[in-house]
């Protein structure tokens, strides 16, 4: 399973301890501190959270962040020595990637748990050092600010990522609490609802369909498995990013979520920006940074797109199948850029969306299964052409099994499909335009309702 869909330790962003103890105490402590101490105070809050989750791992993350900070300082020191700078950057990349690999491989084999932030903290540190290396951002001398960027606990679950320069520029820890806290709080609650209520139910359904014995697997169950996986992944990951962005807003650290209804994109280029866009952006910049100015050449640009796709795929899971997923998406991005882009922009919007959805859905088996042959087997189960289906053919009993799962979860599935589209979002926008005051009240009531449902799902 992907690390973002794994069960997390007892205290996490969607636990009762966090919602009703840690969060209120943290926000109160943060705003009670004088503005000049808030950065350090927030870092201390992050450290407490990490220690509560896993003390040893917390020390590793802090150590890694210190290492990345030292790398950044060395880059500033070796300002004129090109090879020394390259060496520092290479060492920094090697150490951070090693940390990811060391945690991911045993966890993927089921021999160890996934550790909080193993795929986020090293990447945040590495991309920040990359910015220093490419001189896009000036050198950092404040360790606390750098550490806050890398160790801000809400984003350690799955992002969002972001440029260090923007973090430094936009962070405002000295503001006073007021009504403007409602918006980030609302974003946090929506994210928590996605993860703890909808995402959790979809992950349950996914597990149930996946556990169907071979003789009960049908074409319908194969499609259901892939579609439910797509929704579970979207709601879980985007929920974590919403929560992180909401909490960031609460503490004065603005962040993009990186998700905006990706499954209804009009093309794959659009999809790449709307499906964990901050990740592909961060990886893309890192990859292009390797090639410097040559990245603008067509051939190198294509190579960069494939490399970005591959790395993004590997970020989800370190195996060949996930790499293929990233390459598959990158292939269509390249095709759209260089071959079919104009033709696509001429087709009706609905057709474009259908094309995007089809390409994405057919790619999901590669992300779902850990081995390419298993992914292909699932694809063959979805498209039983010429009797090539690998399904068990258990007849009516097999169809009843999947129909039972679908019918006994119809509400979660229907809500999932609805929330994958921007219909509700458009409705809210319209309401805000036509009746701003009413919309405020309605949204607060909805937020409160969601908070109740989140709590109900956790007790």
């Amino acid at each position, binding site marked *: 399973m992907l690390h973002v869909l794994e069960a997390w330790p007892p205290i996490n962003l969607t636990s009762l301890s966090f919602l*009703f103890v840690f969060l209120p105490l943290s926000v109160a402590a943060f705003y009670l501190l004088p503005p000049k101490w808030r950065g350090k105070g927030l870092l201390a809050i992050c450290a407490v959270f990490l220690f509560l989750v896993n003390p040893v791992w917390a020390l590793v993350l802090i150590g890694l962040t210190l290492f990345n900070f030292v790398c950044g300082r060395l880059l500033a020191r070796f300002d004129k020595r090109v090879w020394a700078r390259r060496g520092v950057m290479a060492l920094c990349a090697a150490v951070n990637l090693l940390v990811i690999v060391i945690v991911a491989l045993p966890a993927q084999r089921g021999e160890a748990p996934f550790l909080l932030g193993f795929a986020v903290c090293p990447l945040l540190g590495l991309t920040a050092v990359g910015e220093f290396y490419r001189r896009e951002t000036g050198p950092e001398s404040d360790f606390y600010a750098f550490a806050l960027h890398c160790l801000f606990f809400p984003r350690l679950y799955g992002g969002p990522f972001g440029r260090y320069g923007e973090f430094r520029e936009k962070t405002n820890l000295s503001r006073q609490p007021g009504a403007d806290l409602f918006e980030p709080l609302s974003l946090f609650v929506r994210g928590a609802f996605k993860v703890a209520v909808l995402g959790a139910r979809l992950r349950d359904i996914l597990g149930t369909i996946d556990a169907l014995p071979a003789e009960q697997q049908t074409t319908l169950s194969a499609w259901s498995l892939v579609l439910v996986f797509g929704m579970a992944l979207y709601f879980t990951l985007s929920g974590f990013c919403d929560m992180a962005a909401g909490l960031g807003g609460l503490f004065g650290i603005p962040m993009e979520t990186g998700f905006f209804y990706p499954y209804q994109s009009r093309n794959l280029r659009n999809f790449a920006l709307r499906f964990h866009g901050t990740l592909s952006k961060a990886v893309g910049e890192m990859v292009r940074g390797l090639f410097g100015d040559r990245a603008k050449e067509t051939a190198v640009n294509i190579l960069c797109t494939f490399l970005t796709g591959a790395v993004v795929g590997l970020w989800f899971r370190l195996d060949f199948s996930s790499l293929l997923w990233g390459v598959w998406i990158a292939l269509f991005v390249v095709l759209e850029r260089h071959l079919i882009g104009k033709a696509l922009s001429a087709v009706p919007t609905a057709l474009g969306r259908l094309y995007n959805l089809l390409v994405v859905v057919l790619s999901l088996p590669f992300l779902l299964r850990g081995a390419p042959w298993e992914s292909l087997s699932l694809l063959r189960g979805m498209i039983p052409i010429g009797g090539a289906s690998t399904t068990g053919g258990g007849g009516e009993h097999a169809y009843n099994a999947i129909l039972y799962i679908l019918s006994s979860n119809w509400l979660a599935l229907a809500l999932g499909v609805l929330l994958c589209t921007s219909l509700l979002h458009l409705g809210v926008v319209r309401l805000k335009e036509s009746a701003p005051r009413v919309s405020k009240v309605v949204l607060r009531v909805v937020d409160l309702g969601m908070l109740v449902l989140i709590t*109900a799902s956790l007790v």
Partner: protein
Amino acid sequence: MKVKTMKKIVFFGVLLLIPFFALFARYLYSGAYLQEVKEQPADFAQGLEGHLQASLPFSRSLRRLSLSIDLAGGKWEQDGIFISAAGLMRGLEPTMPQAVDVNTLAILEFAEDYQNEERRVYLAILPTASGVRQQNLPRFSSTANQRNFIESTYNRFSGAVTTIAVYNTLLDKRDQYIYCRTEDNLTALGGYYVYEQMLGRMLSSERSSLSQYDISYLQGDYHGDLYQAVPYGGVQPDTLMFYRYGEVGREYTVTKVGQDYRKVYHTLYPEFLGELGEPMDAYLGGMSPVTVINTNVPGQRRLLVFGDRTALAYLPFLANHYSEIVLLDVTDASSVFLEAAPMNYSQILFACGADTYMNSTAIATALSLTPQVFQ
């Protein structure tokens, strides 16, 4: 004081009150929370989460809300328990493929060794509620076909052991109150119908009628183990009833024997146990590894039963036909079996729920502990 300052105070006050309310509202004076604080931070986090789950204000209402939403969303099965207007039913799926073979071979071997003209061996597999009330299960749901399972298992005993068919009887009576609505067991009435079939096969010369029994009630609002797992408010609570044989002068002694205890009740229904908070224990004193029922029924017929919790439903009726019945709870097999079981029996009955027979090797395990009884 300025309005802005007031707002700030209210803001921080609310923030600080939330954890206070969550943590200490219920345990303010008990100090229970402090006992849960462990030295290790991770353990502390786990303890805190567990404590909040247990003690968060309105947690029961929130759980009900969560369940209601699940039901509205079509999820009429929770943790393997089906929810219907007729009651809660535990689903049954084969989870232990070799269990049926192991139990069947153990009984066949036992019958071969110990069955003779004076001592007959009987087998009754009792279907569970989900096997009989299939019309109440959600659409497309799948549970084991208990009718087929029981028939095919009985076929394997053909000629070796006398089987007692109860499935069709219970199916015919499925609209009556034969299964508990909140507990995974037969009601006393269901037990009576099972007993009727047993009587027909084991003591065909004797007759019994429901009119011979006086009915009394222990409580009408019993919520059993299934309800504890799935607190669905739409299910009607169970009514605990006793069927007392009307013949004057009938005396019973029920002896419960466990690893380190021995209790004696001079009634089939020690009602005071129900009043002490364990209503189901009012039937034969509840389950224990060995239960011995002695009666003043004329004659020396003795019955040994290898059973499970279903015995609580039918054994009070059978007690009126034997001078002694020994029930060995196969799901709680222990060395106590060796001490408690007497030597000579007229009949030996294997009677357990389809779930016990299908998904555990309890009968085989129990038999492996008992042969010395028959030496």
